[in-house]
Structures are given as C-alpha cells and as structure tokens.
C-alpha cells in the first residue's frame, strides 16, 4: 500500500532527476521515521539483570541508528530504481513449467541429486557430518515437502483454506506411537494404519464444515488443530500429556533392524555396522513417500475428481449444477490431504532419534509453516511447493551453521534467534516479487497438442 502511494508520488513529481530524487528522499525519510518509531521499543531499550539481581535498563542507540539507516537506504534505493528504470519491463509470457527447458532440466537435476544425495553427503563430509546433513536437512525438508503437497490438495486444488493441517500430522504421529507401544506393531504395519486413521479424521472434520468456505472454514480448521493438540496434552492416561510417548520402535529394513547384532541389517548384508545406514534408509523412505504423494496428486488432477476439485475452487454453485457431488468432492479432498499428513506424521515419529512424540511438535506454528510453504510456492504448483519447502526449512536449518557470524556481531549473537525475522522477510519479499507464489502458472490438465500454461498474472490472486 505504501509502495503504490510512493509510485504515484514519484510519477507525479516534476519531470527530471532532481525532482524524482527529492521525492524519493522525502519518502525514504518517512520510512526512516517509521523505522525509528518501531525500533525504539524493540531495539533501543533492553532490560537486563545485573549481578545483584536487579533489572537495569540497557540503552542501545547504535542499534537503532543502524536500523534506521538501513531502512532509509533500502527505501531510497528501491524508489530511485523505480524512478530511473529505463522503461517498464516488457510483459513476459511465461512458458509452461513442462515446456520450459530450464525448469525441466532443473527438476531432472533435482531428482538426480536427491537420488544420490546421501552418498554425496558421505563422500563430501564423511560419516559424522553426513548424518547431520541427511537427517537435519534432507529428511526434515522432505517431510515438509510431503506435508506441503498434502495440504496443496486441500488448499491449492480444492480451495478449502485449512489452518489446522498439523492436526492430521499429529494424528498420524500419535496413531503410530500408540499402536506401537500398546500393540507392539512395527513401523510398516502402522504406516498404512496411520494414513487411514488420519483420513478418517479428515472426513470427520469435513462433515461439519461442508457448508463453510473461506474465512469461516479457516477458523473451524484452526480450532480443530488446537483441539487435537489440547487433547494430546490433557488426555494424560492415553498420551502421557506433555511428557509424551517415547520408546517407539524404529523403522526396520523390511524386518531387519538397524542394530549391531547378527540379525541386524549390517550383518545380513555383510557390512560393518554404522548408525548412518538407518539414516540413509529413512532418507529413501521419506523420498519415496513424498514421490508417491506427488504422483498421486498429479494423477488425480487428470481424473474427474481432480478436475472437480479445481472447479470447486472456482465456483461451487456451478459445480453442483453440472452434476458434481460437492459433498463427496470436498470430503475426498479433506480425506486425501489428511491421509498424506498422517503418513508424514507416522514417519516423523520414527525419524526422530529416540522415537519420541510430544504435543509440542504440533503447535499452530507448524500449520502456519506448512501453509506458508504452499502459499509461497504457489497454490496448486507441485514444484513451487518443493522449492518453498527447501528454502524455508533448509534456510532455518542453515542458520545453525552460521557460527562465523559470531566473529562479526560478538559472542552473544545467535543466528537462529533471527529465524522468524528472516522467515517474515522472505514472505514479504516473495509476495512483493511474485504475489501468486514462486511458481504461479497453472498447466491445464487437458490439452490438444501442446501444454499451454495459464500465465501467473492471469490467475486470480492467491490461486494457481
């Protein structure tokens, strides 16, 4: 909103450089003032306890000066660039994702990289380092890619805004943890059960919200997510509350446990025992699960039910008058989205080091994160969602690697504390740069000779 106002002002300014510069400086000064106002309570004053356990007020005016200066310069440069851009950029006609050779090459390279990733990591950083890079990075990212693709069915394709998706993730996780600890079932038996249970709960949530759309639906799903978490916290007899359930059995290699024994995976294949075998195996499991999610979604988009989802997103009344059973259509979207969430949840438990699950892993923050991945990636776009997951999840993990920043900002500087700040910044930037997500073109599911994408700027705001 401020940007538009500034555009007008710059355009209205008297022709010539001096006028434009003056207008830009004026506008940037306003921004600097705003930054001053904001940073005063946040940055300038800091309370700290001294040795005598008293609170003392620490003043940090240099921080404020830096923030204000940065805001001023950023705004000024942005406005000057606008004012002196040679000409408005020519409208680009985006080639469809499938036909854009660069993107196709990128996708293929990505898949290839994923297939050899664990061994690449092993070769590059050795065993100790590779566990971190495979477990913390790749597996984490892939879990979120899968969650993003699952939510994409509900939000991106069917257009049903779901703010409580983490509930299904939690249901899958708890289903596995409880089944495993009470009935002594293994990961591979529990995986489909967790998926089915989550899908069942998806339908259960779907029924009461059938008549709701948009904001109203969002509120109810938000509440559903919280209900599941609160039940997990308070039903202590079943879930052990905050303490969580631990000791969930780990995934086995189709019956072969990853342990240092004669029956173990390593012994069976004549390898030397190493914990990394399990990590690599888990990597391929989640890779396969994510790939299946993607494949199912792409298939369904071409079937009547997938088309019905997209039509439902566009116009529910028209759908009904064309003979589409909107009730079933919504419920299948909910159920399928929930199922993938549940599968991811089941995997999540087994991928954690100690096979440990607590309600704290399923806060609203997780729902928001998954939704952010879907929206930033571009609603309805599979590749976009994957890219967004890599950037958002990989990015926050990367912050842990930035120890060298301590040598610049002092020993107290903790880059991970800035996670949310950077996260918000990334969201704002993407929404300015590409308001409809990173990949905003929509490829028709039926075409005559050649796929022709629907250009991003022709696709309605917030939809792909």
């Amino acid at each position, binding site marked *: 909103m401020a940007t538009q106002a500034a555009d007008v002002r710059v355009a209205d300014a008297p022709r010539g450089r001096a006028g434009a510069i003056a207008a830009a400086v004026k506008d940037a000064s306003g921004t600097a003032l705003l930054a001053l106002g904001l940073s005063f309570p946040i940055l300038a004053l800091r309370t700290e306890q001294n040795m005598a356990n008293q609170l003392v007020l620490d003043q940090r005016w240099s921080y404020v000066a830096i923030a204000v200066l940065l805001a001023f310069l950023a705004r000024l440069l942005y406005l000057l660039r606008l004012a002196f851009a040679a000409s408005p950029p020519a409208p680009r006609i985006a080639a469809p994702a499938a036909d854009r050779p660069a993107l196709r090459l990128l996708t293929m390279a990505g898949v290839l990289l994923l297939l050899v990733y664990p061994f690449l990591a092993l070769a590059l950083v050795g065993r100790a380092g590779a566990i971190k890079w495979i477990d913390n990075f790749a597996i984490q990212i892939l879990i979120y890619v899968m969650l993003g693709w699952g939510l994409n069915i509900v939000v991106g394709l069917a257009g049903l805004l779901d703010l409580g998706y983490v509930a299904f993730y939690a249901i899958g996780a708890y289903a596995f943890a409880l089944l495993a600890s009470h009935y002594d079932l293994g990961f591979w038996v529990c995986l489909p059960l967790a998926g089915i249970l989550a899908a069942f709960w998806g339908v259960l949530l779907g029924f009461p919200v059938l008549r709701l759309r948009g904001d109203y639906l969002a509120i109810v799903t938000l509440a559903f997510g919280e209900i599941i978490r609160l039940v997990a916290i308070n039903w202590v007899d079943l879930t052990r509350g905050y303490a969580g359930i631990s000791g969930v059995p780990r995934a086995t290699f189709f019956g072969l446990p990853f342990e240092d024994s004669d029956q173990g995976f390593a012994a069976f294949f004549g390898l030397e025992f190493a914990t990394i075998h399990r990590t690599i195996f888990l990597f391929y499991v989640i890779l396969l699960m994510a790939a299946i999610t993607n494949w199912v979604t792409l298939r369904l988009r071409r079937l009547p039910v997938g088309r*019905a989802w997209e*039509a439902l997103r566009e116009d529910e009344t*028209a759908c009904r008058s064309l*003979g589409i*059973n909107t009730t079933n259509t919504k419920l299948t979207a909910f159920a399928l989205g929930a199922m993938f969430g549940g599968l991811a949840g089941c995997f999540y438990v087994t991928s954690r080091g100690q096979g440990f699950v607590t309600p704290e892993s399923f806060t609203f923050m997780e729902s928001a994160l998954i939704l952010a991945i879907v929206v930033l990636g571009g609603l309805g776009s599979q590749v976009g969602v994957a890219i967004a997951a890599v950037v958002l999840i990989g990015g926050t993990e990367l912050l842990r690697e930035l120890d060298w920043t301590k040598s610049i900002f002092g020993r107290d500087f903790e880059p991970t504390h800035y996670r949310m700040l950077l996260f918000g910044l990334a969201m704002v930037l993407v929404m300015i740069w590409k308001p409809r997500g990173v990949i905003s073109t929509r490829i*028709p599911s039926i075409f005559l000779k050649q796929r022709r994408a*629907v250009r991003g700027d022709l*696709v309605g705001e917030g939809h792909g």
Partner: protein
Amino acid sequence: MSEPLLSVRSVKSFYGHIMALRGVDLDVHQGEIVTLIGANGAGKSTLMMTIFGDPRAREGRIAFRGRDITHLPTHEIAQLRIAQSPEGRRIFPRMTVRENLQMGALASNEVHFQDDLERICAYFPLLKQRLDQRGGTLSGGEQQMLAIARALMSRPQLLLLDEPSLGLAPLVVKRIFDVIRALNMDGMTIFLVEQNAFHALRLAHRAYVMVNGTITMSGTGKELLARPEIKAAYLEGGRH
C-alpha cells in the same frame, strides 16, 4: 397434448421466512421454447434454481419426464439430462475453455467428449478457436456462449437458460438468440428466463409472465407481445 417434459405444480419456495415463489404452475413440452419474463425480483431465477433443487421447493411438485424430482439434490437433478446455464454465467475463469466444457461433460459418458465437442462447437465457431484459452479471458458474449456450450455437453433433453442476454451488447444478444433458435430447430427443448421481454417473446412458442412470485399471465409469444399491459410493463423502451 402429451405429458409435459417438465411440469411445475403449485411450487412454493422460501429464502428463510420470505416466500419467493407463491405457488407456481408451469409446463414445458418436448420441442418447445418456453420463456418466463418478469421484472427484477419477481422470482424468475428462483424458479430456475428451485427446479434444480437449490433452494428446495417447500411445497408443490416438480416432475421431469414424469419423474418426481422435487426432493432430489442438485447434483442428481443435473445428471438427469436437464442442463442449466445459470444466471451470471458462472464459468470457471481459471480453467481453459476446453476444461470448462469437460466439466460440463461430467454427467455424460466421457467417450463422447470429442464428438460432442465438435457438434457443439458447430453452434459456437468462436469457442472453437479459443479452446485452450482461459475462460476468464473471454469477452462477456463468449463467456455466455461457453456457459451454454458447457450446459449442452451433458447431452440434455431440456436446457434451462437464465438471462443469457444479461449485460451483453445488442448485436451479441441477437447472435445468442439465433443460436437458441438453431438449437431448438435441431430438437432441443428450451426453458428461457429473460428480462429482455421483446426478444424472448418473439423467440418463444409459449410464454409466462411472473409478478411477485406468481404467474399472472400466459399464452403464446405472439399473443403476449400484442397485449397492451405487457407492452406497457415490459416493452416500452425495451425494444432494442
């Protein structure tokens, strides 16, 4: 006369507590163009939607080919070879023209898709050139044609059209009415709800006039065109 294709008998329907239809009787016979004219808010579109079960008729009976459809859900009515082009077109703007038509074909057998596409595009040559274009980028007239074409894709016996002339230029309106006449010539039964009384009455075999949720007059199109009260209420200044 034989049994009507569509019969509406003393149908009442409500929006909350407000009675929108106060006992409507109406017949559409095989091969006819029947039109329903009336002022804004008379209940024309409500009748159209009530036939489609949304809102459901609270009293009375609606029958299609002798079968009672009063209590069927909308999507099941749509699978009975009744098709509707709703008010305001309601095409899917982000889907291509071809995908829009494909959505219309959901109620019929997919095997026919390509044949039906050819057959229907014969009525709408403009659409044929725009098959891979996004629905929302079409002009108003083209969108209306798409809405009619989409309805036809389900191979209906009865086509319900709600205000196809809404917001369109006179020349485009004429073209759409030509298509409606051509469809009828080829055997399609059409029930047309219109505000553009002059065009609608000239086109229709029979016509009904609706005022405040009841039918106040009926007759052949020519008869009604000649009635002075019709002229005064619906045609003065409307001759375009």
